């Protein structure tokens, strides 16, 4: 992305084109790009297969909100008792079978 005020730049791109981060599965697909250099279609398919959902579900907050809580991999709303931060990333690492560098701190 790049420079511009947050409303005009970051929020506008997020609404127009973004996957939705932990509101959906954007962080999970991003991890496959970062760790395995996967192009987008491959990364989405990999994550969808691991989650046992369709690729079209990955950007659907209605599907992903409850699934993320069920898998305990971090949810967008502040749910007491749900895994947070590095706790959630440990579950993500196991779920996706992918390394998360900061887990070496544990």
């Amino acid at each position, binding site marked *: 992305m790049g*420079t511009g005020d947050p409303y005009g730049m970051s929020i506008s*791109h997020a609404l127009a084109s973004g996957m939705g981060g932990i509101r959906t599965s954007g*962080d999970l697909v991003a991890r496959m790009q970062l760790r395995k250099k996967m*192009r*987008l279609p491959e990364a989405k398919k990999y994550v969808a297969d691991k989650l046992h959902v369709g690729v079209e579900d990955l950007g659907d907050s209605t599907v992903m909100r409850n699934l993320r809580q069920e898998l305990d991999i971090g949810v967008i709303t502040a749910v007491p008792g749900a895994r947070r931060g590095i706790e959630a990333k440990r579950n993500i690492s196991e779920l996706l079978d992918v390394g998360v560098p900061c887990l070496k701190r544990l």
Partner: protein
Amino acid sequence: MSTIRTRMGDGYVVHLSPQELRDDLVAGSADAVKRGKVPPLEENEIDWLVDLFTNPSRIMGVEPGHEVILTKDGSVNTLYSAQLSSGVGLPLGREQAFRVFERAFCFDTMEIGHPDYSYKPVKPIVALEATGVEQALLTAVIPVFYGAMPNFGLYAQPDGPFPNPADLLPRGEIEAAREAQMQMAEACKADMLYVSRVMDQVGSDGINFDTTASTGDAEFLAVLETVEELAATTDLAIEVGMAAEFVLGFHGQLEYKGKRLAGMWPHQQVKVVEEAGAHLFGPAVNTNSRRSVPWNVARAVTIVKECSRVATIPVHANVGMGVGGVPMFEVPPADVLTRASAAMVEIGRVDGL
């Protein structure tokens, strides 16, 4: 519909007739073909862009299922910094701002960076920077990058120790200018490696080299050699974002693995970035503020489409102020920004923005 309301590359509104709109789209793509030596857009892609800009809706977006990953250079500075980062001056710490991007803006990844945002000034305060990254790593779920610019200019006098090539070249001292750039490259590379290794040690997910090659081919070479070393020795995901569409030949004779760097366009840049071992590539296509946004968007997606076609690593196109068809204005209008965003995904075939 008699006219289409769109904008110029400086953000101001302009009204085009349907024929003027199509002409601008075709001309923008043709300019990309001429300058970048890339294939033109297909007729159906021009039609798609016509529909995009003709639609009267205030904002537009990609089709459901076509969403892409967002990375952000310039980091969270846009929330707490001043106008230098298009910042809105919120009284937030970087770690708080990071969480806002994760939980309120729903970004897929985010970055910690210093307000000065260059590797050279970060080096003496890297412990502070690493602390910021550590805090984000402990509390955030999304991948955490550290980012900064090579900012080659900081290594030349009066800001740095080496003779300034911009002073030497007008005097005809070409060899001295080249030698100075190679000295600058070594110093820049040392700083980038130093900072990156600390970020690797604390567990950062990635490192971002933003506005790469802003000072031309020597800076590009310094980044490529840094990437090569980091890819071989660290656990970092490496993003290389470019400063402009075309690598300036400020040195003119530099090569990376037998490929001349000066004059490279995005579809050529991505191949050397891949070869160096990077994980993400960010092409930048400059906006011409004297042309319409449709002209600029068509030009940008024509260039990026070819880059995406030849790439084997994910391509995250730059679509910030003044690049990727986005107007050169610090408060970008959402009507044209969202159209540039959607076009870059649907026609540019990028993996992220």
